[in-house]
């Protein structure tokens, strides 16, 4: 019921539109069939499956717009949600930023569905948990972790005849393994569209090894260090940089990408588009056809999405914007794929192991935790290292070190690159391991 085919989605949405009396109507259908298992203290704690299908209807009268959602699909419920969206629209004040619905579009092929993932069973999930629990028990460790898989559909139709449909699968796994005395902790995460690439036993082994290796950490003085950020450590700061690349806030003076005009400068630009802000090895782009991280080829409003370079050779190449802002400023509309902001960072060929080997002195960081913005002008963030922080000397991991709090900006970080390794998929993005000099740790934490 929650996973409707393209034909069924079209039928439902056509019916929704048949009830519409508004000037324009756009409707979205999102279905999900998800399963999960959670374990901790070497035992399964919760597990479940959820099935849901939600309809969102946006009705427009002139510049007035209203949205209503429902998860029931008898004719009376569908008609009711349409009426409700229309009532809301009629009552709403004009929204001068409301754009007319798009005309029908053409989309390139989507490769987001994998039968293997759609067929995951409760037994598979239980086995994934056991892959961490049994070896942890043998090693006198305590395992906790989570596996979740999803089979989803999204469809959009509007009163101009636009229709888009996507079916996707995803699976993600993470495990935290701790020593019984709580002095060591290791972590791992993996996510794929195709579960046949997942090896939960192999992944769990990484967390097990890190938990043992991280016990009895030594204290290093806070300060500036060369760090190797594993992809799972770099993803948080890079993602926040990406999410702050909006054109409107830049044009309005409320972003690190706002241009500060010099005294007497005539017709200064509003933003830093085209400016080189980072090391020239920095390349960040989106691509719905990336084989490791495929996404739908349409945006939330039905606009087609293709490969887009956001940062090219360290230069700001493209800014994210809405259709309204693009129209108002006479710039190109740069949509991103519906269902999440996929971004891909290029790197080199070096593996993480090789990167460690090529480091004279540095700190290996497994992950960064509780990252929060301190200053939006400089993109200064704070947060902490967690679950495996190690001191490297002469190409080898020498000993575990206590966790640090960092206060650092990804802008600074991407100007202090020593090396970029081979990107891997993390949280639906591609991220290389990064060796960064002068990364700022401001204090020590007792947390393990």
């Amino acid at each position, binding site marked *: 019921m929650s996973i409707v085919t393209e034909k069924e989605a079209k039928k439902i949405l056509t019916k929704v539109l048949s009830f519409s009396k508004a000037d324009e109507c756009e409707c979205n259908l999102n279905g999900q069939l998800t399963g999960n298992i959670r374990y901790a*203290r070497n035992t399964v704690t919760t597990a479940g499956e959820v099935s849901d299908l939600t309809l969102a209807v946006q009705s427009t009268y002139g510049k007035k*717009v209203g949205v209503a959602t429902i*998860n029931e699909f008898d004719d009376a419920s569908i008609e009711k949600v349409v009426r409700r969206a229309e009532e809301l629209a009629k009552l*709403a004040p004009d929204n001068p930023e409301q754009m007319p619905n798009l005309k029908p579009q053409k989309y390139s092929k989507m490769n987001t569905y994998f039968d293997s993932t759609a067929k995951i069973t409760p037994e598979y999930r239980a086995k994934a948990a056991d892959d961490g629990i049994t070896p942890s028990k043998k090693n006198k460790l305590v395992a906790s972790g989570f596996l979740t898989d999803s089979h989803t559909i999204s469809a959009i139709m509007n009163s101009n005849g636009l229709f888009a449909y996507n079916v996707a699968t995803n699976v993600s796994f993470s495990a935290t393994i701790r020593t019984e005395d709580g002095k060591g902790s290791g972590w791992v995460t993996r996510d794929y569209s195709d579960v046949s690439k997942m090896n939960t036993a192999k992944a769990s082994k990484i967390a097990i090894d890190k938990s043992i290796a991280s016990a009895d950490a030594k204290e290093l003085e806070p300060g500036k260090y060369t760090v190797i950020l594993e992809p799972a450590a770099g993803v948080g700061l890079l993602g926040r940089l990406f999410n702050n690349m909006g054109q409107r806030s830049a044009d309005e003076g409320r972003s690190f990408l706002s241009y500060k005009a010099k005294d007497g400068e005539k017709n200064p630009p509003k933003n830093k588009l085209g400016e080189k802000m980072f090391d020239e090895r920095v390349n960040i782009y989106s691509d719905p056809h990336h084989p490791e991280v495929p996404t739908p080829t349409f945006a939330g409003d039905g606009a087609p999405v293709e490969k887009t370079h956001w940062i090219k050779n360290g230069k700001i190449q493209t800014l994210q914007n809405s259709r309204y802002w693009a129209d108002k400023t006479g710039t190109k509309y740069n949509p991103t794929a519906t269902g999440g902001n996929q971004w891909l960072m290029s790197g080199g060929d070096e593996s993480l192991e090789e990167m460690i080997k090529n480091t004279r002195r540095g700190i290996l960081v497994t992950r960064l935790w509780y990252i929060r913005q301190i200053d939006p002008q400089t993109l200064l963030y704070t947060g902490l290292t967690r679950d495996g922080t190690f001191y490297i000397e002469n190409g080898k991991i020498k000993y575990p070190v206590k966790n640090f709090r960092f206060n650092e900006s990804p802008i600074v970080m991407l100007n202090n690159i020593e090396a970029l390794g081979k990107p891997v998929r993390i949280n639906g993005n591609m991220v290389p391991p990064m060796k960064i000099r002068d990364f700022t740790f401001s204090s020590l934490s007792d*947390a393990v």
Partner: protein
Amino acid sequence: MGGLILPITGNMVSAAQLLDRPMDVAMKKQLADIALNAAKSAGASYADARIGRYLNQFITTREKVVNNVVNTESAGIGIRVIANGTWGFASTSKITPDSIAKTARQAVSIAKANSKFQTEPVRLAPVKGVGEVSWKTPIVKNAFEIPLKEKADMLLEVNNAALSSGASYIRSVLFLVNEQKYFASTDGSYIDQDVHRLWAPFTASAVGKSGFKQRASMGNPVGMGFEYLDGKKEDKVFVDGANVGYNNSYDMVEDATNAGKELQKKLTAKSVKPGKYDIVLDPAHLMLTIHESVGHPLELDRVLGYEANFAGTSFATLDKWKSKKFQYGSNIVNLVADKTQPYSLGHVGYDDEGVKTKEWDLVKDGVLVNYQATRDQVHMIDQNESHGCCYSQSWRDVQFQRMPNVSLKPNQKEDLSANDIIKGVEKGIYIAGRGSFSIDQQRYNFQFGGQLFFEIKDGKIVDQIEDVAYQSNTQDFWNSCTQLAGKSDYRVGGSFFDGKGQPPQVSAVSHGCPTARFNNINVLNTKRKV
């Protein structure tokens, strides 16, 4: 697709008709019993069913524009069972007898599949069935019933106030939540609850020559109706030379006007000199410090390791609690948990596993005395009564331990004001409003910012300053608490979207506290050049 038809004796009614008003209680009981019976027949030793209808309304505006008006509605049933000593859960949006029975059996089969790997069978603290009961948030004005235009106009008035007084941009939002939830369990409880919450935040910003500044609202998310936005005079707390604080009602237009003025000062305010200061924290700020450094570390599931893979564990380990002398804070620090405080976000009659809510001590005279625990956890701390703090964000998700309201008791001896506290500080900083916040996974090391910062010299606020963040360690921090304001200064703030669990769920929780002083705290300067 097929119409969703629910049976009532002799009649049939479509789901759409039901949605115009809460579902009839008798029908909910009938449907819940189908779930409980199917689960028991399939081999469950315990089962509960939650039939939920969740309504939200969000109105978002920026400057002079209403961006969006969204109504959402979601209905369904979540069924939780114990079979072979193991939890299983399944949920469905299809509320028909067949679908409910199938979902109950699915929950049992999931429990059985997982039981192969189970080492500690689930042990539930006893709960006596309460029969058929109901509870409702004591609201005065149902915010869903206020005309949309009135709500949108109010937000536009707020925006206008900020823009007229110095802000360059503003976004304001009204979030309304109504949870209509029906809980039934094989213990013999049938509990119908109607829960309301409201939050009206804004973020204003001002752009100057040297950059831009932001100021977020000082209002609180609450378990109240639209009456919270009445902005009554008696609910205002004035701090000399600084801000206005709000108690049980909020003057949003006044706050937006102040935000515009304060933004202009922020643009030219001097940057803090880093070092040690005595800091005075207003309740709208301190509530978040309590949330992070007391609320989370005293969740028993974290302490025991159930959250190790996501939110983390806790420094407040069982041995510290067992010692009965772990000095969490100074002896004026008394922290209580509850789900009963009026106007709070956590206020309900029963939790999501049918336990009647109550208040209990967490830290008494500075000493750690208890945690927050659910039915399947309390035996691990040698107690046999659940604390009643189990919650699920919707019918779709499984319920688990969530933070109740956690509050700092005001000064019991003297009814001091914030101004009285500031008077005693020689070199300090007064911080108002919640800003950036970050804490490690065991809740030792934290760093907090704020919205407004004021330098205190010789007992007086002398200047608005900028770029302030303070870093501390939880136990050191609470032991440096030297003074509390009294009950007249006590205010309840909260977090509308607190995240926890995998898959992540949000919950809403409040924290009451008075203005408080903490001595000799490490203050950083956060200004950077990039």
